């Protein structure tokens, strides 16, 4: 009894001291509701770019981060002040419209909204505010509005290239994909392309792929599921594994990087950006990444908005395979040539991935 009393007393005194130490702070809180901060940022510049993330964080090592890097890069290029670019991290899917409105009210000229789920809210805001430019990442535009550019990608193309690469590298005849949820269309497109690409070099190849089973809020942030599932695929004889699904996919890449034979008999392929740069732990197995280059796409569109040459409607960003980095010597020249041919074929339309038909 004595011991527990003394312990609680000590803990309590510490807390109390901390709280009392901060006592002066609250008196100032109610008084501080002037909008000095808003006035400052409002007067700073003439061209301002805001970004609304999908539910999640701006530095998520995934698509929110890529888009934000696009904004910061374009701000550098255009010589914007630090105060002229800002982001709001969405907490709840219901808040998309509010968060966009926040930037509209603050007089932002360009608003980047990240993720297909923001599509509706973006188009509604665009109709209400025809003099503000909107860049909707992953948002397919069914109707063309002059002030909305949907930055979209042929994920199936880069997935197809990854499939060609995986199918050619595989010795066991089994390859795998560990994916975020199929509730999100781009993930499905990557996988469809991957399967088609692999079958194009080896018609008998066994492609095993699985989507995260949980709800949408967990599907991209469950690295342990990604890792365990990658292990499961390895156990089933897969020797090239495509990890496509944010942090979940990164978990898969890291698992394969520590597997027996990583980089010699077992390989992994990343997604979205060149993951050689974003997931160093995956270096032992990472032959390439199926990229959709959000960052340069955002930069191009912001610049066009600044130049007054904003393209409304769908704007296709680059979807490509990342460099092989350390594996460059391992990839035979024929395979490199095949990939180049395939890329050309995908662009001119002579190769069809079968996605969306």
């Amino acid at each position, binding site marked *: *009894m004595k*011991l*527990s009393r003394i*312990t*609680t007393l000590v*803990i309590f005194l510490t807390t109390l001291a901390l709280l009392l130490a901060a006592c002066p702070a609250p008196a100032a809180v109610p008084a501080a509701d002037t909008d000095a901060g808003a006035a400052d940022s409002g007067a700073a510049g003439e061209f301002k770019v805001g970004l609304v993330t999908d539910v999640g*964080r701006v*530095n*998520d*090592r995934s698509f929110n981060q890529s888009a934000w890097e696009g904004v910061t890069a374009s701000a550098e290029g255009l010589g914007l002040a630090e105060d002229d670019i800002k982001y709001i991290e969405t907490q709840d899917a219901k808040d998309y419209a509010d968060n966009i409105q926040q930037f509209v009210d603050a007089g932002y000229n360009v608003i980047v909204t990240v993720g297909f789920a923001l599509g509706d809210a973006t188009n509604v805001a665009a109709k209400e505010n025809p003099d503000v430019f909107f860049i909707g990442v992953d948002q397919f535009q069914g109707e063309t509005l002059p002030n909305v550019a949907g930055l979209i990608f042929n994920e199936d193309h880069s997935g197809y290239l990854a499939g060609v690469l995986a199918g050619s590298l595989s010795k066991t005849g089994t390859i*795998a994909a560990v994916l975020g949820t199929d509730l999100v269309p781009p993930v499905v497109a990557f996988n469809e392309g991957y399967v088609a690409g692999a079958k194009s070099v080896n018609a008998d190849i066994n492609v*095993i*792929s*699985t*989507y995260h*089973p*949980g709800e949408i809020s*967990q599907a991209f*942030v*469950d*690295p*342990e*599921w990604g*890792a*365990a*599932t990658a*292990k*499961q*695929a*390895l*156990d*089933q004889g897969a020797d090239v594994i495509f990890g496509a699904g944010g*942090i979940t996919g*990164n*978990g898969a890449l*890291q*698992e394969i990087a*520590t597997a027996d034979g990583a980089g010699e008999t077992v390989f992994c392929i990343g997604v979205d950006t060149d993951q050689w740069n974003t997931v*160093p*732990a995956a270096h032992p197995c990472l032959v390439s990444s199926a990229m959709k280059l959000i960052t340069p796409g955002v930069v191009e569109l912001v610049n066009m908005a600044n130049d007054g040459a904003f393209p409304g409607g769908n704007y296709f960003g680059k979807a490509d395979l990342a460099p092989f980095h350390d594996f460059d010597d391992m990839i035979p020249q024929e395979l490199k040539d095949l990939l180049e041919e395939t890329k050309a074929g995908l662009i001119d339309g002579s190769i069809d991935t079968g996605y969306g038909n």
Partner: protein
Amino acid sequence: MKNSPPVAVLQRIRSRYGTALLVALALVVMSIIVNMTPLKEQTWLRVLFGVSALNFTLRATVPLVLGALSGILCERSGIINIGIEGMMLAGAFGGFVAKTSTNHWPLVASLVFSVVVAMAIGGLMGAIHALFSIRFRMDQIISGTVIIILALGATSYLYNRDAIAEGKFSSIPIPGLAQIPVVGPVLFDNPPITYLALILVVVVHVGLFYTRWGLRTRAVGEHPRAADTVGINVNLYRYVNTTLGGMLAGLAGAFLVLEAVGQFQEGMTAGRGFISLAAMIFGNWTPFGALGAATLFGYTQALQNELLLAGVTQVPRQFISMLPYVVTIVAVSGLVGRVRPPAAEGKVYETEGSE
């Protein structure tokens, strides 16, 4: 350890868990047969008994069983713990911070240190839970809820996304045993926390049922007034057990960060703490029962993956994913043998001197 020769222990285990052991044995035999013979070409048999499914099961089981053991320690002493999820997450975060700040140490030293930190942070959360529940007489379910929300908010707020942990625990095959076909690679070729979790099941079982500490803990959870009368310090036992429980949940977090993934991610426990809770209840507040339940839940997760990997999609995947939760509801509803919680759970115990 009083009057409990190993044989008696075995007998008791066998009588109580006879059916479960039989099922487990059947599974092992089936999986050996399936994996060693051409039968593995059969899709359905491979889905059910393939090595990949068994490996996934064990891996999914580890955090669940550690979480369940955490719950057992708390609840056997009379403190309800629905905050396992929060303790796990806090432990994972603590382990991650420790690992990133000791990246320059030798790998093993850094990892072991991080595990210790993870357990300490988990233990701290456990101690806070005990403090809330005992000293401040907060409703224990609410206190657990506070632990969860606090851990989620604080770890997200404090998480430095640029920090990278370098290295994680790798497998240590046990010489000899690891060479056994099928069973070897699944059970005896694992990283250390996995072994530790399995050992802890036995340790907690023996501790709870065959030591003076265990007897007293159970007395405190079942009948605190009587325990007090014979001179047991009820609240001290509750503080200690809840803190120990928090440490086990922290170890589960360490498993996720330092052994399974190698990185931290906000909310990476992804509901595993809640499923542990279910495993604890399904296992009737016993360590081996919890292990059985956790294995079952791990197995259902493995199956839903196996089915997708095998291209079986006749049943919508959402319904397969529901299995662990539905099984739990069925279990707590007493449709599969009634479970009984410790009698004095959730009630504040007040001695004359506690005010």
